[in-house]
C-alpha cells in the first residue's frame, strides 16, 4: 500500500513538472513596497513608474528603452518606419494576446493609442506628447501612428503609452480604471484598495519564447504594497516582508550599511530638481537680466545640492545630464557670488527700483527636504537684499499656481521636480520655454520658433540646434537647475535588477540569487 501511494505521488509530481509552463518562475512571490497607492490602474498612469508602481508588469508598450544605452528597442512593435514626415508605421509582433484572450492586432493597437492620447480624455500622459498623436489601421499587423506635426521622437514617445485591451476600452470603459488588461508577463489579479495589488505570472507571455525578449519570468507572482513612511518601507525589507523597498533616503541607506542581508541600490533618474522664476508678464524687475542674475548667483546651488538634496547628481548648468540630446558642453552651474549679487541689487535700488518680495514655494512631499531647501534659498536671497516669502504648499494649492501664467503683480518662483523620460531637450522646451507650455513662465516667440524648428530635426542637426537654445536659455537665466535626482532602493541581499534611468519596477528584470 505504501509503495502504491509513493508511486502515485511520484507520478503526480512528475505529471506536475511536465505540465508546468515553459517559463522559469519558481521564485515565489515578489513583494515591492512603494511610497504611494496608485490613484488608478489606467494604462496612462504607467507613463511614470511612481504613478502606477509595478503596472508595467501587466501593460506593455509598442517600444521600450534599453536600460543601459536608453536606445529605443522593439516591444509589441517589432519594427517601425517613418513613411511620411508625420506618419509612422509600426509592425506588430505576431501571436500576442491580451490577458482577456483578445488578439493584439492593428485595430486593437489603434483603439488603445487613440484612447490614451485623446484630447477628450486629457490624460496627464499628454504632458509628454509633442504634436497630437492619432492612430489608424494599415493592415492587420500594421498600425499607422500619425502626428499633427513632425515628431522625430515618436518611437520614443510610444514607450510612454501602454497598449491595453480594445475590447475593454470599447465595451467596459469604466473597468479600465481598476482592472488593467495588457499583454505583459504578469496578469492582473486584484486591487485591494488601501492595501495592495497583485498579479500572477503569465504562462502565455510572448517574451517566454521570443528571441528579443526583455526579461525572464522568475517570480510566480508580484504583490505591490505601499507605505508612505520610508522607515517602514525599509523595515519591510529588513524583516523579510518585501524584497524591494522604493525611494529610500540616504539615511535609510546608511542604516542598511550596518545591517546584514540588505543592500541599497542607488541610481540617477530622469527627474531633475529646478528653480523656476516668473519671467515674461511678471513683475517688471523679474524681466530684467540684472535682477535675474542677482537671484541666480545669490543662491549656492551646489551647496544646496550637496548638503540638502539627499541623493543627487550635479547638473552642468542645465536641466538634463550629458546623455541627453541637446546637452551643451560649454556651460556650468550658476556660480555662487553673493557679493556680485548684492552689488547688482544695490545698483537696481540706486536706479530707483523697488525690490519685490519673491514668493518661493515648493510642493509638499515632491522631494525629500525641499522645505529646508527653500528655507536656505530664502536666507541666501535675504543676505543679498532680496526679500522672500517661502511656503511649502499642498498639491491642491501648488498645482494651480504652478500652471498659472505670470501677472505684473506676481513675483513667484518654485522649487520643483520635473521629469524628462525622453532625454531630449525638445520635451523640456515644449513644457518650460514656450508661451503655451503647460508649466512655462517664459514666452519669447522667436525662441519658441527656433525650439519648434529644432524639434523637427534629427541627428546631429537636432542636437546642435537644441544645444544652441540650451546655451541661450542659460544666458537668459530662464531656469536654474539644482540637481538630478537619484533614487534609492532597499533590496534583499543577492538581489539582481537591471533597470534604466526610468527606474521601471519590472519583475522579469529582477531575481534573487540567494
Amino acid at each position: 500500500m505504501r509503495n502504491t501511494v509513493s508511486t502515485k505521488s511520484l507520478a503526480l509530481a512528475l505529471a506536475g513538472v511536465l505540465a508546468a509552463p515553459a517559463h522559469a518562475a519558481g521564485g515565489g512571490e515578489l513583494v515591492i513596497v512603494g511610497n504611494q497607492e496608485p490613484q488608478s490602474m489606467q494604462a496612462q498612469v504607467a507613463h511614470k513608474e511612481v504613478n502606477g508602481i509595478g503596472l508595467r508588469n501587466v501593460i506593455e508598450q509598442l517600444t521600450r528603452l534599453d536600460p543601459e544605452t536608453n536606445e529605443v528597442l522593439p516591444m509589441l512593435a517589432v519594427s517601425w518606419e517613418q513613411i511620411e514626415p508625420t506618419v509612422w508605421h509600426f509592425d506588430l509582433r505576431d501571436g500576442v494576446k491580451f490577458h482577456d484572450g483578445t488578439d493584439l492586432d492593428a485595430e486593437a493597437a489603434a483603439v488603445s493609442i487613440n484612447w490614451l492620447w485623446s484630447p477628450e480624455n486629457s490624460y496627464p500622459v499628454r504632458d509628454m506628447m509633442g504634436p497630437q498623436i492619432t492612430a489608424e489601421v494599415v493592415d492587420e499587423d500594421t498600425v499607422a501612428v500619425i502626428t499633427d506635426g513632425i515628431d522625430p521622437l515618436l518611437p520614443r514617445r510610444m514607450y510612454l503609452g501602454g497598449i491595453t485591451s480594445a475590447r475593454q476600452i470599447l465595451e467596459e470603459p469604466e473597468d479600465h480604471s481598476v482592472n488593467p488588461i495588457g499583454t505583459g508577463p504578469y496578469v492582473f489579479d486584484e486591487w485591494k484598495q488601501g492595501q495592495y495589488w497583485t498579479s500572477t505570472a503569465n504562462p502565455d507571455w510572448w517574451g517566454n519564447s521570443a528571441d528579443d525578449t526583455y526579461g525572464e519570468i522568475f517570480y510566480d507572482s508580484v504583490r505591490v504594497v505601499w507605505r508612505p513612511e520610508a522607515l517602514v518601507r525599509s523595515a519591510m525589507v529588513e524583516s523579510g516582508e518585501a524584497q524591494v523597498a522604493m525611494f529610500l533616503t540616504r539615511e535609510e541607506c546608511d542604516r542598511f550599511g550596518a545591517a546584514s542581508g540588505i543592500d541599497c541600490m542607488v541610481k540617477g533618474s530622469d527627474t531633475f530638481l529646478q528653480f523656476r522664476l516668473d519671467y515674461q508678464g511678471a513683475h517688471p524687475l523679474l524681466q530684467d537680466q540684472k535682477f535675474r542674475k542677482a537671484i541666480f548667483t545669490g543662491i549656492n546651488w551646489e551647496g544646496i545640492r550637496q548638503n540638502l538634496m539627499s541623493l543627487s547628481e550635479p547638473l552642468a548648468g542645465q536641466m538634463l545630464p550629458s546623455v541627453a540630446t541637446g546637452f551643451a558642453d560649454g556651460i556650468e552651474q550658476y556660480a555662487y557670488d553673493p557679493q556680485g549679487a548684492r552689488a547688482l541689487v544695490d545698483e537696481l535700488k540706486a536706479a530707483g527700483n523697488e525690490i519685490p518680495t519673491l514668493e518661493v514655494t515648493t510642493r509638499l512631499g515632491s522631494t525629500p527636504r525641499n522645505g529646508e531647501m527653500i528655507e536656505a534659498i530664502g536666507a541666501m536671497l535675504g543676505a543679498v537684499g532680496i526679500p522672500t516669502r517661502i511656503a511649502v504648499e499642498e498639491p491642491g494649492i501648488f498645482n494651480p499656481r504652478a500652471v498659472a501664467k505670470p501677472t505684473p503683480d506676481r513675483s513667484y518662483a518654485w522649487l520643483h521636480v520635473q521629469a524628462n523620460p525622453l532625454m531630449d531637450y525638445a520635451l523640456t522646451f515644449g513644457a518650460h520655454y514656450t508661451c503655451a507650455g503647460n508649466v512655462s513662465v517664459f514666452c519669447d516667440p522667436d525662441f519658441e520658433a527656433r525650439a519648434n524648428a529644432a524639434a523637427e530635426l534629427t541627428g546631429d542637426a537636432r542636437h546642435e540646434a537644441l544645444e544652441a537654445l540650451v546655451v541661450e536659455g542659460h544666458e537668459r537665466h530662464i531656469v536654474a537647475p539644482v540637481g538630478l535626482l537619484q533614487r534609492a532602493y532597499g533590496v534583499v541581499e543577492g538581489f539582481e535588477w537591471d533597470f534604466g534611468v526610468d527606474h521601471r519596477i519590472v519583475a522579469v528584470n529582477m531575481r534573487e540569487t540567494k
Partner: protein
Amino acid sequence: MKINNAFFAFILKRLLNSVILLVIVMSLVFFANRQIGDPARMVLGNGASEEAVLNLRTQMGLEDPMSQQYGRFLYGLATGDLGKTFRFGLSDSVRAGNDANALSTLPIAMDRLPATLILAGATIIFSVLVALPLGLYAAARPRSPPDRAIGVLSLAGVSIVEYWFALVLVLVFAVQFAWFPTSGYGTVAHVVLPALALSLRPIGRITQIARSSLLDEMAKPYITAAKGRGIPMRRVAAVHALKNAAIPIVTTIGDETINVVTGVIIIETIFGWPGIGALTVDALSIRDIPLVEATVFLLVLMVLTINLLVDVAYAFLNPRLRIG
C-alpha cells in the same frame, strides 16, 4: 434599575443635538472643501488645457452655483448619498459618458470602517485593561515608589509623540525581534503594533484620571466610615469608591476613544492600515471632495456615537440623570 421618561428625554435631546451638530460640521466641511484646490486640475495634471479642466469641473458639478451644490449636498446627507468619488472610476467612466458606474463614496468609506473600528476598539480595550489596574494600584499606595513610577510612566504616555513611538515599535518589535509584522492588515498580529502606538496616550491619561479620582473619593468621609465598620480596604476601594469615581474615568475613556478615532489618521498611514484615516489622507491628497466628505461624515458619526454612549453611561452611573 429604574429607567423613566426623563432618561429617554435626555437621550432624545442628545440625539437631536447630535444630528444638528452633524449637519453643522458637515456644512463646514462642504465649504472648506471648496477652498482647498481644484480637484479637476488634480485629476488631469498640470498639462491639461483650461478647456479640459473646465469640462471635468462641469462633470464633477463644481461649476454649478454654490447654493445648488450645497442643496445637493444636504439632500445627499439626508439620503445617505454623498456623491461619486473623483478618484476611482470617474476619470474613465465619466469621460466615457458612463458616470452611473462611477463609485459612490459612502460605500467606499464604509468599506474601510471595520478596519478603523478594529484598530480603535483594540486600542481602547487594551488601554483600559492596562490603565485601570495601574491607576487603582497607584491610588492604593499614594506617594509610594510604585505610585511615583506609574506617575512617570503615565506622564511619558501623554508626552511621547505617537508618530515617533510607532516607528520605534516597528524597528524594535518587527525588525529587531521579528515578533510582529512591520505593517499591513489581515491577522491579529497586524493589530498589535498600531494598537500599541495608539494606546500610549490613552493609557497615560486614563491611569492619571483613575488614580486622582480614586484618591479624591478615598478621602471622603463615607470611605472613612466604611473602613471604621471593618470593611476590608480592597472591598472599600473596588465596590464603594470606584463606583463613585467612575464618572470622570468614563468621561476620560470617552474622550480618549474620540482621540483614538481621530488620531488613527497618522497611525493608519504609517502602518498601511486600510481604515478611514488612511482613506481620508488619500482623498485629501487628490482633492477627492465627495470622498473626503464621506470619510469625515463617518468620523463625525463615530465621535457623536461615542459621545452618546458616554452620556448613556453617565445616566447609568448617576441615578439623578436616570430618574430625573
